[in-house]
């Protein structure tokens, strides 16, 4: 199968858009010191909510709003149990993942395999006619543009704004945060809910644009886990997280094309490729703490110091 490089790169950009949204949402959450393991279920539930609202109201913006709201709602439950009530974030996240997945299948059952509205591509006038870059960057749907924009926005927010500083402080050193008169738990709740909105949008991006429609399976199962793996792979740095998402989308697309070359290797093998790579990255991160090689320094990344730990004022 012959395809041009530009078409391939455009497919990578389109495929990784929802993953980037979800992974950036999780990065925000984890930077504030909270692990949100509910990603996989939350994406599915918000995909369902987005599809159902969009098809019954025939309005795409309402559909996306419903997805984002669903994402916020799931994240708020996690924040209530994991932050306000100081229970284990991992336990709450895991229970939520399975609850949301099954809730999505249960509630979405009557809407399965129905036609629904779908986001069309919106080439940017002028820019879309550029050779090569026009096809790669400027002839996509709004979801893909949103994923492009989300990366610099996330960077600016985290590293160049006062709120971003507060958020990182709540994840690195909540005591210091408290000493400055800011309640770290409030910052954490806000970060979890905001991250949840991005995760919800990722769900909407699936059911309304990337893999339009609702069914069981929808096709976005497992994406949440990949997004969680990407946050670690990217060392909790938004730019590297996004680059990781492009890298894995490339791998998966190559996998589909390699199928012709290696017909005995099923495509599912390439689908699981991110996970061994994530484990390998984690080992490298660990090794980089001991040795100071150039490669390991490139890959190293430190988790926020208070990641996963509840903060109680003593």
């Amino acid at each position, binding site marked *: 199968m012959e395809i041009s490089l530009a078409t391939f790169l455009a497919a990578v950009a389109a495929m990784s858009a929802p993953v980037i949204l979800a992974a950036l949402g999780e990065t925000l959450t984890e930077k504030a010191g909270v692990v949100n393991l509910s990603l996989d279920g939350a994406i599915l539930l918000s995909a369902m909510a987005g599809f159902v609202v969009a098809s019954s109201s025939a309005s795409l913006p309402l559909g996306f709003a419903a997805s984002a709201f669903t994402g916020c709602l799931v994240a708020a439950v996690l924040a209530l149990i994991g932050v306000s009530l100081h229970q284990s974030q991992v336990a709450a996240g895991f229970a939520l993942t399975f609850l949301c997945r099954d809730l999505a299948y249960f509630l979405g059952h009557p809407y399965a395999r129905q036609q629904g509205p779908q986001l069309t591509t919106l080439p940017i006038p002028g820019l879309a006619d550029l050779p090569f870059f026009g096809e790669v960057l400027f002839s996509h749907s709004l979801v893909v543009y949103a994923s492009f924009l989300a990366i610099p926005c996330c960077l600016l927010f985290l590293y160049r704004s006062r709120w971003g500083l507060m958020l990182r402080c709540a994840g690195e050193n909540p005591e210091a945060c408290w000493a400055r008169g800011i309640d770290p738990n409030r910052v954490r709740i806000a970060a979890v809910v905001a991250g949840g909105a991005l995760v919800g949008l990722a769900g909407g991006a699936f059911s309304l644009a990337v893999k339009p429609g609702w069914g069981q399976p929808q096709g976005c199962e*497992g994406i949440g886990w990949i997004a969680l793996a990407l946050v670690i792979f990217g060392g909790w740095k938004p730019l590297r997280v996004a680059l990781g998402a492009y890298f894995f989308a490339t791998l998966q697309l190559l996998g589909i094309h390699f199928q012709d070359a290696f017909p005995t290797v099923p495509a599912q093998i390439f689908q699981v490729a991110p996970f061994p790579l994530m484990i390998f990255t984690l080992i490298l991160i*660990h090794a980089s703490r001991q040795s100071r090689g150039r490669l390991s320094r490139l890959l190293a990344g430190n988790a926020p110091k208070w990641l996963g730990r509840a903060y109680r004022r003593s």
Partner: protein
Amino acid sequence: MPSSPPEPPVNRQTHNRPMSPSAARHHLGSLAKFLVIALLALGTVSLLLLALGISPATIAITLAKGSILSWQKFGHVLSIFSPLLLASCGLLFTFRAGLWNIGVEGQVVLGAIAATALLRQGSLGLPPGLVLCAAMLLAFVGGGLWGALAGWLKHRGGVNEIFGGLGLNFVAQGLILWLILGPWKRAGIASMSGTDMFARELWMYTPPGWRVAPAALALALAALLLSALLLLSTRFGLRVRAVGLNPLAAPLFAINPARTALAAMILGGGLAGLAGGLQVAAVYHRLLPPISSGYGYLALLVVMLANSRVSPVAPICLFFAALAAGAIQLPIALQLDSALSGVIQGSCVLSALFVHGWRQRLREAR
């Protein structure tokens, strides 16, 4: 990985708390807590159903009809109960050692693969019973090795067991797909419907009219008794507990936290592997892509709900198994999705976490 691992799964407050004035009051307290959790979870789900215009009573009757109101259906419940109990027992070891063994799902899969590797060869001229025993032993070894790998990754590679285990789950899923579509494919065509059926004499014996192999049930119950014995009344169980509660203090009592944690991972993985072995030997008689039926993940919910204590595990497993079996009737009788069972199970765990947290908050406010 995070230099500060997430909190161990055991709820320290409940366990470290000095005994309440009278044991009777303590028991009354835990009974009241149980009722509050059940009421909260079932109340929330009922409200959801009412909002959708579905009568919770109809659902309850359908679930009961599909699970406990006939021996045939109850046999099905028990055939879910057996692997679920095995995987949950395995998780008790790792959770009490303070390890989030998310890799349990992959350990179930590896157990199934290891058992299949032997069973697909036929009986090799040996007595079938012996081959089945050997297959179960292999399943234990397969799951145990997968658990050991996650433990080793944590100890030597610095990979947190949550993400290492999760990664290994997906690797196990890739492995099973590769085996089914590749080397172990059905004669003629490779298909997602699984490998060829095993020879008839290698099916774990199920009496006519039953839906559960008695040997599978016996194996699960024996594993529960043995786990309870090991965890509650041996030095090893105490060591596991000590490492789980305070890995830094454990060395002061000449306990090696790394070795204890690895032992817990191997035992836990082995028990989960047995669950996978049962799935191929007693239930499906071949290897399928969804061979684990998600029982590893379901077992995580069971042990979270049990708060890593031994005694509630069996009743919770039975309840969850009954929900899973009963839910199969929902699409047939009411045109509803069977995922409702998962909604109820998940709500139970979330309610338990909520009630735990709420009680702690009340206690602190006092």
